């Protein structure tokens, strides 16, 4: 009887631990909110650390956090509180790519990842483009790189992806790219990316289970672009700046 009780008790503890993913404040890892410190290294270290220690949320409070590309790892959610802005660094060399597409936030073959909260991800599109053009002009960068302008988000072969509430702004390339992902849930986000031409809101291909709901799009390119290779795509309550309902463009 006693053993049985202990067993249930431990089960409960394990269960509750899993339910309440741990929160880590960004400053614990030396991430700085001043808008001038490049935080890439600390943010990546934080995400790796959280993932290796059972997962949780990396929480950014009010401030501007300058960063280059980083990778999300299993069971890590980036939580951007209201007033927190992740700002993309201007230099093209601070962006990595997955599947041929550069992005500020990357994820490759991982599960249970998310970006949530009322904060902002700002791509700094003009400055990044200027850096690309400059480097091509000087001959350091292949001219073929120009079409591969960094997106804000590029997730490849990930499952259980959540985007909730965030504001995505001013991408250099497309805003979000999801390839061969499973169970992607995007709800209540705001996408504003008009300062450079043909910045698409969302590009999906080969996904299985994609839900977009209650979101606002103001983009220079198509709001939602799907090449017909995705299954189980559902869109509801998403509008563009002219008040038009958004459907998956084919």
């Amino acid at each position, binding site marked *: 009887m006693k053993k049985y009780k202990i067993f249930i008790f431990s089960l409960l503890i394990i269960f509750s631990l899993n339910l309440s993913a741990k929160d880590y*404040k*960004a*400053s*614990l890892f030396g991430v*700085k*909110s*001043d*808008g*001038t410190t490049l935080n890439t290294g600390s943010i990546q270290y934080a995400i790796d650390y959280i993932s290796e220690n059972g997962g949780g949320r990396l*929480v*950014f*409070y*009010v*401030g*501007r956090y300058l960063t280059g590309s980083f990778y999300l790892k299993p069971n890590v959610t980036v939580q951007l*509180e*209201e*007033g*927190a*802005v992740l700002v993309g660094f201007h230099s093209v060399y601070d962006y990595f790519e997955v599947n041929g597409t550069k992005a500020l936030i990357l994820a490759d073959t991982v599960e249970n990842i998310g970006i949530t909260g*009322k904060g*902002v991800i700002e791509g700094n599109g003009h400055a990044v483009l200027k850096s690309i053009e400059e480097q091509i002009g000087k001959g350091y960068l292949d001219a073929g790189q120009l079409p591969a302008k960094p997106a804000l988000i590029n997730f490849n072969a990930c499952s259980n992806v959540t985007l909730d509430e965030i*504001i995505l702004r001013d991408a250099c390339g497309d805003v979000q790219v999801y390839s061969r992902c499973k169970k992607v849930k995007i709800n209540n986000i*705001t996408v504003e990316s008009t300062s450079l031409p043909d910045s698409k809101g969302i590009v999906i291909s080969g996904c299985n289970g994609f839900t977009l709901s209650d979101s*606002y799009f*103001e983009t220079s390119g198509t709001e939602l672009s799907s090449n017909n290779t995705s299954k189980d795509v559902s869109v509801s309550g998403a*509008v*563009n*700046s*002219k*008040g038009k309902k958004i459907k998956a463009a084919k």
Partner: protein
Amino acid sequence: MKLKSIILSLALLCFTGVFAKDYNASIFGIKSNGTTLNTTSIQKAIDLIHEEGGGHLNFYVGRYLTGTIELKSDVHIILHEGAILVGSTNIYDYNIETPNTALVYAKNADNISITGLGVIDGQGRDVAYSLLDQVHKGIINDQLKYDRPANRRPKGIYFRECRNVEISGITIKNTAEWVQVYDQCENLKIDKITVDSKAFWNNDGLDIVDCKDVLLTNSFIDSSDDAICFKSHDATKMCENVEVRNCVARSSASGIKFGTVTRGGYKNFKIINNKVYDTYRSAIAIQTPDGGVIENILIDSLNVYNTGNAIFLRIGERWAKNGVGSMNNITIQNVYAEIPATKPDAGYPYEGPIEDLPRNISPASIVGLPGHDITNVTLRNIEIVYPGGSNKTYAYRGIKPADLDGIPEMPDRYPEYSQWKELPAWGFYVRHAKNLTFENVTLTAKEKEYRPAIVFDDVKGATLKDMEYNFPGSGKKLFKYKSTEIIQK
């Protein structure tokens, strides 16, 4: 008899002038090398000068590293051109267990001053990170509000209950918290100072708290939090007889602000011939959210460029036990303001937070509470230029009764012009106010607006004279709701 007293005062003046002794910092072993920590030797110098009846402590060119020093009565610090008082980056060099820890601290000291063309550099960012590091190591206990230390970040200057205070000529840079605070001081003169502080959160440029007889002139204040700020922390005190002239303010919060904490209140203010630019929130914000009384405020000749909002007047009720405050007899005249479509403080360190979205460009606002009107407000010779171009798909607030009644009162919220998110007007939104005068007010929207220029809700008595509205299309000018005695001439 009169002659006698004049002669006597003249003699007294000469006496104090002649006998105010000069001391050079070097005689106390204070080093100007920028690496020697001088805290104890500077304190020794201050104590000795104070005990010997007062005098000037002269710092000549050099960098003087120090932790907290406490100024005493009759001690005058002169930072000559090229002299820099440099704050230590070690948090343990400050009086962190005293409330309001500061680099230069004074309590109950009379006749004190910091003058000259020198600099006080708080090195606040490094100080704050030194403190944060100790918090993360568990050595200092702090709950980290918004992921930054809530307590123990040193201010630049904190003077409490001091009389006859003068600050002039100096530049104050980069503190870890508020740059300078004068709390319950009397006869305070601040002239020709420069504040350049974008080092960390809560870098208010200048806080005058419950002070009497204040003259602030010819100063330039650029700070990441509120630039020129009046506060009232004590319900039994208030800020009284304050004059601000010929100042320039830049902020990633508000330019000239009354509040936030307003327990006692503000009375008899003249704020004349000032400029606000590149400021994220309001150029002029007058708020009583904590029971304070605000009376007789004159804002005259204010030029505002690239600033998020021109005017914000607000009664709130954050802490019920203090009751609700009042705001009466506010005159704002000769104001020109340009509001941009883009973020006014973009590119400055510690930009103001993006919040209260979605909303289109917010109007100026005068907002009391039900049963607590803002009374007797005169707006004269005012021109505000807005970008216009609101998008009602992005954010919408109409003028139907359900829309207007749907705007929450939000009495307990931290007051901010953006707090209601989308408001139903683009020029002015007025709610719960009594006896208003709008005279020669010009409102311009450059692009088309879906909202009226002005919305009055629960306004009891207003006279609008010589109004001018410029906007493309055929929008409404003034929309009245639940309002009485609105006279348009």
